[in-house]
């Protein structure tokens, strides 16, 4: 590789690469503000406010350049003790939850991850069962594991845990059963109405 000499003209600033067609199409329809789009590890991630979720999801499914016909998966992430934007270790992010939809277009072979951020005391999002029937069980699982509710879901009940189960197991403040629990200051709000396991082990011998 040759180094530019002292008299060489400064390199032209490179033109930014053209946005991904999916990004361009979404920007064109919804503008810059309604949808934040970033690329993580080469995968597209779009973030949308819950008030526009149904509108965006319908567009994603029906637009001829997008055609996301396959809702692969629904889940959530609890950012109680981790902030992807940085910050001191053990400190969480607000809002606490992200509901994550993995979309795929069988017709056009592209993927998109759609996220909706939710506050803990208002963890409610419109159900997408009317758009993709496969959302039914995925949303039930997310409700069961994280306590996020889906408005308009036909049968929002627990699916993997028993109906009378207490708490939502994949929340970060839900203690892991049969393990010693460290009550440190970095893990806030551990006092759920659960019977901690170390007590149970004592009773059961």
């Amino acid at each position: 590789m040759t180094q530019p000499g002292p008299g060489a003209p400064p390199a032209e600033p490179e033109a930014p690469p053209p946005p991904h067609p999916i990004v361009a199409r979404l920007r064109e329809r919804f503008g810059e503000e309604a949808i934040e789009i970033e690329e993580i590890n080469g995968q597209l991630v779009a973030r949308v406010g819950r008030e526009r979720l149904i509108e965006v999801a319908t567009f994603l499914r029906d637009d001829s350049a997008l055609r996301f016909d396959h809702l692969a998966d629904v889940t959530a992430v609890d950012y109680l003790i981790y902030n992807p934007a940085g910050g001191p270790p053990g400190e969480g992010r607000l809002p606490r939850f992200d509901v994550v939809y993995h979309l795929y277009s069988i017709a056009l072979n592209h993927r998109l991850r759609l996220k909706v951020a939710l506050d803990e005391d208002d963890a409610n999002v419109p159900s997408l069962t009317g758009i993709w029937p496969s959302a039914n069980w995925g949303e039930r699982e997310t409700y069961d594991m994280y306590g996020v509710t889906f408005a308009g879901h036909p049968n929002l009940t627990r699916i993997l845990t028993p109906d009378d189960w207490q708490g939502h197991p994949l929340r970060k403040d839900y203690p892991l059963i049969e393990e010693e629990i460290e009550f440190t200051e970095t893990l806030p709000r551990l006092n759920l109405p659960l019977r901690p396991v170390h007590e149970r082990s004592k009773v059961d011998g």
Partner: protein
Amino acid sequence: MADTVAARPGTTLVEEDGKLLLNMGPQHPATHGVLRLVLELDGEIVVSCRPVIGYVHTGIEKTYENKTYHQDVTMTDRMDYLCPLSNNLAFALCVEKLFGIEAPPRAQVARVILAELTRLNSHLVWLGTQALDLGAISVFLYCFREREMLLDIFELCSGQRMMTSYIRPGGLYYDLPDDFAEKVEEILRVFPPRIDEYEDLLTNNELWRDRTIGIGKIGPADAIAWGLSGPSLRASGVNWDVRKSEPYSGYEKYEFDVPLGTNGDVYDRYMCRMREMRQSLRIIRQALDVLPGGDFVVHDHKIAFPSRTELATSMEALIHHFKIATEGYRVPAGEAFVPVESPRGEMGFYIVSDGSGKPYKAHVRAPSFYNLAAISKMAEGLYVADLVALIGSLDPVLGDVDR
């Protein structure tokens, strides 16, 4: 009252309009594990079918978050216990994506061979049990006879017949054994006539056709909307195979066809899987021919364990070994979703990493979970006896459904 039946396995109820609410399962041989179906019946006809799952839920995703990545590999086996190597592969690919690395060429080709052997293994269990459900006992015996050969290979590689944990982030757990190629050659030699034999018993068998053709139909649009994947989707004529559309581990280098059905019924799902087995053999043949030598795992001791020889000679290697064993390797912060084509369909891991040795979140896109969800749609209007054929044709593994 109807809720009581739904809540209590083993109960039945005759409703006022003469319809019967019946619990099928969770202990029922035809439900392939512990699946319970709450059926509303009009005579022998299914009016509605509501699956109740969660009987083998083990909170595996919670456990992932509390163990190191290295320990998590062993749990991936235990979800879908009929295709552990596909699960290993999906997990390894997802972690590798977060690291931004690729496994060495030898590992890549070995992964393809092993993934296809796993597909054969899984399809044999499916075929055996599906045929057993419909009364063909001999097929079951034949399938399990051939399956032993596959399990022997897995045992040869990993020391385990079922819970292999053989494919690890960065490559493989250990190099392929010396007689691996020889054993796989034997599979390639023995299997084609055996698959013919199964087909002789079933494909044109009038009883088999009566019990499967036109049963549990689902059209392509519905199949996509309900999130079906794998052979269950392709039987409806939808051409989508992750190996073709988003190739991983070098699948783009091999020639193979994606078998498609037309009617989306139990028979087409059967035909799709039978033809898929032959395609798997084709892929294994090509991969075995190009299996290169060289490393079986990346030479980065921040990710993979150092070899035994290095441990004996290098202090640094010993320290790396100790660090990985106690703390695990640190995966760069970020997130990724990587799907693979498991025998049941699109099987993917979604991992969020906070940069520590344990995943902050690890979620599984389980193909059986979504395939099974569609059963309430497909079961309407079937006879109870045909429902048994339908369950088998979706090939659900309850360990995968409940996790």
